[in-house]
C-alpha cells in the first residue's frame, strides 16, 4: 500500500470517533433545529407537519421573545466592557510588585472555579430584601429599602453584576500572561524616551494586548449568550420577563411549555447571533487588532 493512501486511511480512522460524536451533538442538532423550526410541535392527536414560516411569524409577534433578545443585548453590552476593563485593571495591578498581590490574585480568580449555581445562591442571599447583606448596609447608611431582584428597573443589572464578578478574574489571567510576555526592553526604551506611564500603557502595552483582548472578547460574547444558570437560580426570568435571556427563554419554551418547534426556531435565532458575532470578530476585528 503506498504511503499517501496509508496516511489518508490512518488519518480518517484516528479522526472518526471524535468526528462522529461532534457531528451527532453539534452539527446535526444545529441543522435539525433549522429543519424543525419549519414544522409544528407534535401533539398526541396531531403529528408534526410542515408549517412554513409560521413559527417565525409567531416569534415576530411574541413580545417575550423581543424582550429576551433586548435583555440579552443589554446584558452583553453591560457585562462585556465592564468585565474586560476590570480584568485589565486587575492584571496590571497583580503584575506590578505591589503589597498584597498574592492575596489579590487569589481573590480575583476564585469566583472562576466555583459553580455558577452555587455562587448565584450566595448572591441571591446578598440581594434578599430585609435580610440580605446589601439591604443591611444600605439601611445602615440610611438608604430606603429596595428589592434589587424584584423590581424591573434593577433586576437585569443585579444579575449582570454577578456575571461580571464571576468572569473578570478568568479574563484577568489571559491579560496577566500577555503582560508578562511583553519584553522588558520595551519599557526601558520607552522610559529612556521619557514617556509617561499612561503613554507607555496607551501606546505600547494596550496595542500589544489587542490579540488578547480579541480572544477575551470572543469568550465574553459566547458566555453572554450561553450562561443562564444564574437566571434560573435568582429570578427565573422575572420579574415580568425583565431578566429573561434568549437561552433561558428557549429553556422555558422547550422544557416548561414543551413547544419544541418554537424552541427550535428560537435556537436558530440564537445560533444566528453567535454566527454574526463570529463573523464580526474573525472577519472584521481580526484584521484590525494586529498592531501595524
Amino acid at each position: 500500500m503506498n504511503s499517501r493512501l496509508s496516511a489518508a486511511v490512518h488519518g480518517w480512522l484516528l479522526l472518526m470517533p471524535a468526528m462522529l460524536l461532534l457531528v451527532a451533538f453539534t452539527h446535526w442538532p444545529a441543522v435539525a433545529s433549522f429543519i424543525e423550526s419549519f414544522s409544528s410541535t407534535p401533539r398526541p392527536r396531531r403529528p408534526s407537519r410542515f408549517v412554513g414560516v409560521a413559527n417565525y411569524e409567531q416569534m415576530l409577534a411574541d413580545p417575550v421573545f423581543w424582550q429576551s433578545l433586548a435583555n440579552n443585548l443589554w446584558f452583553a453590552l453591560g457585562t462585556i466592557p465592564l468585565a474586560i476593563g476590570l480584568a485589565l485593571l486587575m492584571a496590571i495591578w497583580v503584575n506590578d510588585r505591589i503589597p498584597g498581590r498574592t492575596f489579590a490574585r487569589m481573590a480575583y480568580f476564585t469566583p472562576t472555579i466555583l459553580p455558577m449555581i452555587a455562587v448565584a445562591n450566595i448572591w441571591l442571599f446578598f440581594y434578599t430584601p430585609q435580610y440580605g447583606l446589601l439591604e443591611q448596609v444600605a439601611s445602615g447608611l440610611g438608604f430606603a429599602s429596595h428589592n434589587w431582584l424584584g423590581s424591573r428597573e434593577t433586576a437585569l443589572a443585579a444579575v449582570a453584576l454577578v456575571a461580571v464578578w464571576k468572569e473578570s478574574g478568568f479574563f484577568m489571567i489571559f491579560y496577566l500572561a500577555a503582560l508578562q510576555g511583553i519584553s522588558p526592553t520595551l519599557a526601558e526604551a520607552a522610559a529612556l524616551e521619557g514617556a509617561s506611564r499612561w503613554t507607555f500603557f496607551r501606546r505600547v502595552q494596550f496595542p500589544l494586548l489587542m490579540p488578547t483582548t480579541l480572544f477575551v472578547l470572543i469568550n465574553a460574547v459566547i458566555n453572554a449568550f450561553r450562561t443562564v444558570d444564574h437566571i434560573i437560580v435568582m429570578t427565573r426570568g422575572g420579574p415580568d420577563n425583565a431578566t429573561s435571556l434568549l437561552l433561558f427563554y428557549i429553556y422555558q419554551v422547550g422544557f416548561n411549555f414543551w413547544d419544541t418547534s418554537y424552541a427550535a426556531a428560537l435556537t436558530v435565532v440564537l445560533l444566528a447571533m453567535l454566527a454574526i458575532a463570529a463573523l464580526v470578530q474573525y472577519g472584521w476585528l481580526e484584521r484590525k487588532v494586529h498592531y501595524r
Partner: protein
Amino acid sequence: MSDASFTPARRRPEIRFSPYEPRGFWRALEGVGAVILATLWVLPLLFAFWAAFHGAEYTTRLELGAPLTLENFRRAWDAAPFARYFLNTTVLVTLIFACQVVLGTLAAYAFARFDFPGRGTAFALVLVQLMIMPDVLIVENYRTMSRLGLVDTIPGIALPYIASAFGIFLLRQTFKTIPKELDDAARVEGASALQILLKIYVPLAKPIYIAYGLVSVSYHWNNFLWPLIVTNSVEARPLTVGLQVFAGGDQGVDWAVICAATLMTSAPLLVGFLLFQRQFVQSFMRAGIR
C-alpha cells in the same frame, strides 16, 4: 520616571524591574486599590462562610463572638442525598475527561501528523464547536437522548461533551510542536503509528493533559443547564442540579443551611484551588492561549 537607574541596588539582580513599576506613594495607593477590590471580590464567599458556620440567628447579625457550629452542614447533608450527588458528579467528570482524552488525542494526532484529503474541512468543522457549544443546542440534543433511551442517565449527560473541539485544538497545537525527527527515528525502529503516539506524543504532552484535566473537570463539575434538563432522578443527578433542587425546593429560606450546602458543593474545587493555586491559574492560562 526616568531616574530608574538611580534606584538602590537590589538583592536579586536577576529580576529586571520595569521602570514603570509604581514606587513609594503610588505603589502604596495601587496596593490599597488592589486589596479593596480583592476584599469586595471575596466578600460574598466570606459571607457564605459566616452564615454556614453559625446558627441561623446570627446569619444576618455579624457578631464576632458568635459560637461556631457545624449544625447547618449536618442538616443539609441529612435533608438531601448529597452523598449520591457527589458520587454522580465524580463518575460524570471522570467519564467525560477519560473519553475526551482518548478521542481528543486520536483526533489531534490525525490533524497534527497525517496528511489526508479533507483535513482542512474537517478541522474547520471541529472549530465550529468553539463557537456553537452543546450548551445552546439543548432542544435537539434532548430529542436525540430520548431516542437513544439515555434520558436520566449519566452517559446521557456526558455524551454531548465527549468530543471537545477545545481539547482537540489544544492537543493538536501541542503535538505540532513535537519535532518530526522523533517520529521518523521511531518509525525506522519499526514502531507503528499508535506506538509512536503512546510512547512519544502522549508523554511529551503531559503538562497539557494536566492543564486540560483541571479545566475540563472544573467545567463539568460546575455545569448545570444540560444536566438539569436531562436528569430527573436522584440516581443520575449531579451535585449542581441536586443543590438547586435542594435550595429551590420547599426548604423555606433557611439561608444558613443553603449556604452550608453551597459551600459543600464547591468545597472540592475550592480546596483544590487553594492547595494548587499556581497549577490552576497556569492551566487555565495555558488552555486559553492558542
